[in-house]
């Protein structure tokens, strides 16, 4: 196990007000295996960033244990040499220094041998495609570039575990796509483990091996994407038929027929069969109406729908 989190809790006490203490994280446990991408999902204030900051040692847990490898971190700064954290997007770099200087500074600080620093920084600059801007002051770089640089700073120690808090926050579509490709490369090609928090479900669906869903500081669901999808056993279908069908209000209501697209000689729609035998009942209806089916298939729920359902539970 690369990372093991056991019954992690955090309560923020309010020293200067009469507000009651705020329980941000409540007994969360999970683990990450080597080479795995674990995504923490949850609405704002669910406790995702607090968990990442507790793992990286920036916030002290109220209770619980965090193991990196076999070592209990409990404030031992040396343990943190095995991980790197990129927190809240483009922050984490010195804006008055250029990318090269930033990488050199953090490499020196982290004790990388002088002989290795040049090769290492050049490698990272090329890998992240910021080689051409390595001597531009960081404050003049685009947000996407800054994000890449922050990731580069995180990679300077060649960490086994990367903690990425909202890595695509505030990025345009193109930069977000590049960041996603980069994370995929780091995990699938280089075999690093990543703990990721994001609100972008497509990013999670594409990269995550396992997902944990947080609500009000509790880890309410955890599993692989297919495990999460199987929890809800939804029975949504899409069907395309030849000709037109005057759907009666009763049928429309019973099967929640939706997203109807009518073309010159075809019609397409989604419907909900409610249970596993529902599809047979629906096909009987179609048969009675003497409708020709072009195709039909079961719809897989996407992560966003699962996420919303978990939060509604």
């Amino acid at each position: 196990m690369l990372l093991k989190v056991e019954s992690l809790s955090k309560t923020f006490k309010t020293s200067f007000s009469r507000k009651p203490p705020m329980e941000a994280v409540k007994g969360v446990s999970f683990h990450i295996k080597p080479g795995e991408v674990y995504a923490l999902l949850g609405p704002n204030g669910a406790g995702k960033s607090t968990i990442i900051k507790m793992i990286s040692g920036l916030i002290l847990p109220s209770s619980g244990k965090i193991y990196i490898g076999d070592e209990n971190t409990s404030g031992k700064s040396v343990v943190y040499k095995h991980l790197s954290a990129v927190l809240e997007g483009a922050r984490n770099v010195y804006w008055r220094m250029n990318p090269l200087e930033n990488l050199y500074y953090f490499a020196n600080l982290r004790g990388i041998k002088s002989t290795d620093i040049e090769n290492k920084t050049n490698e990272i600059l090329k890998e992240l495609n910021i080689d051409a801007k390595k001597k531009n002051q960081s404050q003049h770089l685009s947000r996407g570039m800054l994000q890449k640089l922050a990731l580069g700073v995180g990679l300077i120690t060649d960490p086994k575990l990367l903690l990425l808090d909202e890595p695509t926050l505030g990025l345009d579509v193109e930069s977000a796509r590049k960041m996603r490709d980069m994370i995929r490369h780091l995990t699938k090609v280089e075999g690093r483990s990543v703990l990721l928090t994001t609100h972008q479900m497509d990013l999670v669906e594409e990269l995550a091996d396992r997902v944990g869903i947080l609500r009000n500081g509790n880890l309410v669901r955890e599993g692989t994407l297919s495990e999460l999808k199987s929890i809800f056993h939804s029975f949504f279908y899409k069907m395309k038929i030849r000709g037109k069908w005057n759907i009666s209000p009763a049928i429309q209501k019973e099967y929640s027929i939706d997203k109807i697209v009518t073309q010159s000689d075809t019609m397409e729609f989604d419907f909900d069969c409610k249970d596993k035998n529902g599809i047979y009942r629906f096909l009987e209806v179609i048969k009675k109406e003497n409708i020709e089916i072009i195709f039909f298939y079961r719809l897989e729920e996407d992560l966003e729908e699962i996420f919303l359902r978990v939060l509604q539970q």
Partner: protein
Amino acid sequence: MTFLRDFLLILKAEIKRDFIFMKRYPLEPISFIFFMYLILLAILFGFHQLAGSTSGIINREKMILGYSLMQFVLSTQMGWSGQIQNESQTGTLEQLSISGHTLGEVLLARGFSQLPRQIVSFYLLMMAYTFSLSDLKIDLLHSIPNVVLNLFIMAIGIFGLSYIFAGITLLFKRVGFFFQIINFAFLGLFWQDRGSLAQGGVMAFIYDHLPLTMGMAGLQNSLNPGSSILEVNSLEFLIHSILFCIPGYLIFSLMEKKARDGGLLSQY
């Protein structure tokens, strides 16, 4: 040994970083010295206009030395708390905190890496006054080793205060105004006439044992024309400074722990 090795690592990184900033923004320290120079010159001019002459009314040498020392203290102590405030905004404070070193170690290394620049700034300020006011009884050249040694030891004591101010900034962030008021207290301390304090009193005891005032007294002696090259009782002064630095470090460590407990490292 591990501590020393780690400390040297940070020191190396900080010296390089400081050099980059000095090369990139050379006007920043120069303009700071220039404006500090103008302010005291204006004060001296004001005295002159009011009293017709400054001689006999004020000890100009002590005033200039105290003022230059205040600039030295200010750039060290304000530097640390300013860095904490800025870096909590940019997120680099968090990166420093997960670098495998404590923030206290990083700040100490920064303090030492910036020390040569601050000593040079002190000298430039003093030189500017001796050139402008030719009748000053200050000999800057023969006392260089003594002054450097004095400032170096004094800085260790100031680090203790800087730690406390940095810790307060870590917890409360926007406290710059409060520190600016405190800096005037330092100026008062530097301009205080030791002779006017009651012998054996608490104030006299504090005055005699504060690294700031010990440094001031040492520098006053060193800058007197005709003083010997090594006038400072370095060992006693060093022990005092270290004794001031250690509690500062410990208090800062407690405040850092409190900041980590409250999740305050990145709040600004």
